[in-house]
């Protein structure tokens, strides 16, 4: 087991810069998720950690060692790929045992180790099959088994669940999380799915265009997003963003009664962007913020998503699943002040 540190990692592909100085410290035994839209540099970062690619500049440390110039096999890591990448011409047993090939262990020990891994992943009865006789979920489990068998210091996962169907993905998500709780190795997990990130991570790293936007626990990135990008990326449906103006401790939205906001860093009057999540914007409620006409309803069972036009802007709110408003109704929407996020209009940074 080991910690991982990235120091000022920069990567160029030809003249295109894909990583602009990544600094990140992953604690020993931590489950960290790199998340972001495609092309944000998350997979490149992972490949640099694995040693499959070199960084243009900057350092990668695993444990106490700087591993910049080490081959992947010398880094004490294991990686699980999106396409599973299990060897098609070998049985499950040989696939899992393949990583032990070079290990200095007796044959009996190796067999015992493979059996143990198979037991943990509950696939003992599949050991003699060939990969083409396995389902997608089972193949992914073989790939995880192959990574586990060497008991590496760090597990790297490169979007391992993207090829699975929705139900299987939920199930594997849980299994990987349980696995982490059981074996406790450091895990670095790359995904583009914010739900995967939220559900599995100890800490989430949100990236965009080769830069880290925010590092924090799921609670932090959800409740205290560092900027507009994070606010929009995390949470579904997307956060509502409204134009407003801050003056003397009050936020004025177009055509809406001003509400109090005691942000200390703002001195003078200035335009702001106000964000509020659909989850926190409820139809009806005690202190109505604004009113609008219902456009579309999306019933989800336990609740109903309500698309409301307020002064020409469409916002999403939540209503109860049992008694939703009807299309065309004029409804009032309310949110508590602590669920309102203020962002700088030009930089998009959170105002605190």
């Amino acid at each position: 087991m080991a910690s991982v540190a990235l120091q000022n990692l920069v990567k160029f592909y030809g003249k295109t810069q894909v990583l602009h100085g990544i600094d990140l410290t992953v604690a020993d035994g931590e489950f960290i998720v790199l998340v972001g839209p495609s092309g944000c540099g998350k997979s490149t970062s992972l490949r640099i950690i694995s040693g499959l690619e070199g960084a243009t500049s900057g350092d990668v440390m695993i444990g106490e060692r700087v591993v910049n110039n080490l081959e992947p096999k010398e880094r004490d890591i294991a990686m699980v790929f999106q396409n599973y990448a299990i060897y098609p011409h070998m049985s499950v047993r040989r696939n899992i045992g393949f990583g032990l090939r070079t290990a200095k262990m007796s044959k009996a020990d190796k067999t015992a180790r493979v059996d143990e891994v198979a037991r943990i992943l509950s696939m003992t009865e599949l050991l003699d099959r060939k990969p083409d006789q396995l389902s997608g979920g089972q193949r992914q489990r073989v790939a995880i088994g192959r990574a586990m068998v060497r008991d590496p210091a760090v597990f790297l996962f490169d979007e391992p669940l993207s090829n699975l169907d929705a139900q299987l993905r939920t199930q594997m998500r849980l299994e990987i999380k349980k696995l982490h709780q059981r074996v406790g190795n450091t895990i670095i997990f790359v995904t583009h799915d914010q739900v995967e990130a939220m559900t599995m991570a100890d800490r989430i790293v949100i990236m965009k265009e080769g830069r880290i936007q925010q590092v924090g626990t799921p609670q932090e990135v959800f409740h205290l997003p560092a900027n507009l990008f994070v606010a929009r990326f995390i949470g579904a449906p997307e956060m509502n963003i409204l134009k407003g103006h801050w003056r003397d401790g009050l936020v004025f939205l177009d055509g809406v009664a001003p509400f109090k906001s005691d942000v200390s860093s703002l001195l003078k009057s200035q335009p702001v962007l106000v964000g509020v999540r659909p989850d926190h914007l409820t139809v009806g409620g005690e202190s109505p913020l604004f009113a609008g006409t219902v456009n579309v309803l999306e019933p989800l069972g336990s609740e109903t998503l309500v698309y409301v036009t307020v002064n020409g802007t469409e916002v999403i709110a939540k209503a109860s699943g049992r008694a939703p408003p009807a299309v065309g109704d004029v409804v009032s929407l309310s949110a508590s002040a602590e669920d309102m996020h203020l962002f700088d209009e030009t930089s998009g940074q959170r105002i605190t």
Partner: protein
Amino acid sequence: MNHSSASFGRSVAAHSILLLYTVIALFPVFVIVINSFKSRKAIFRSPLSLPDEQTFSLIGYQTVLKQGDFFLYFQNSLTVTVMSLFLVLLFGAMAAFALSEYRFKGNSLMGLYLALGIMIPIRLGTVAILKLMVASGLVNTLTALILVYTAQGLPLAVFILSEFMRNVSDDLKNAGRIDGLSEYRIFFRLVLPLVRPAMATVAVFTMIPIWNDLWFPLILAPAEETKTVTLGAQVFIGQFVTNWNAVLAALSLAIVPVLVLYLIFSRQLIRGITAGAVK
């Protein structure tokens, strides 16, 4: 109903075309084989009839087996074919791997250069090759033939194999790297098994022309101890008299080893080995 009868008609049509082609393709071989079992008179009297009690004769085979060292010729042919095949597959696959796997300056130019040999027949260089072999003292050795055939087979092998190797998933090779495999092991243990069908194709395409070649054995290695089967069979073809029994028997015999080799490779031509590896 309509649909199934239409597809039935189509499959009958397809099969009859294929059957017709098979008959046309196999007919000369068939004629060679049946006539090799007939007496000389019977060959000329009715070349298309099967051997019967009166016309059946093994005289051709007896002549071939008595005449000189036909076993040696077979051995020479086999040595040359198998060695060239081995070298073509080995070096062709290695070059293809390098071209498809590594990014280096002049990669595509190198690929083009290696593929150029497909378009330029190697026989154009016969005089230069002969001079080269004389200078290096390789005339009348099997090595000369092996070297020439290796050079002749490489362009197509590199071309076909590099296309196939590009389709082997990068993740698979990277998984191997993380599992601690050297580049050689990735090549031999992961990539080669996955391109086996392509290797078999290349093997068949390379093997047949080498086995059948008369040109280079005649020029580079006509000595008695380095004769190949095709060259050996020429003994029976004279300017004025041709011993047809012997020629046909020699040719029939020459089919056997190449048929065996083909059967070995065609068993490897099973597709779908990679299916299921990568979704």
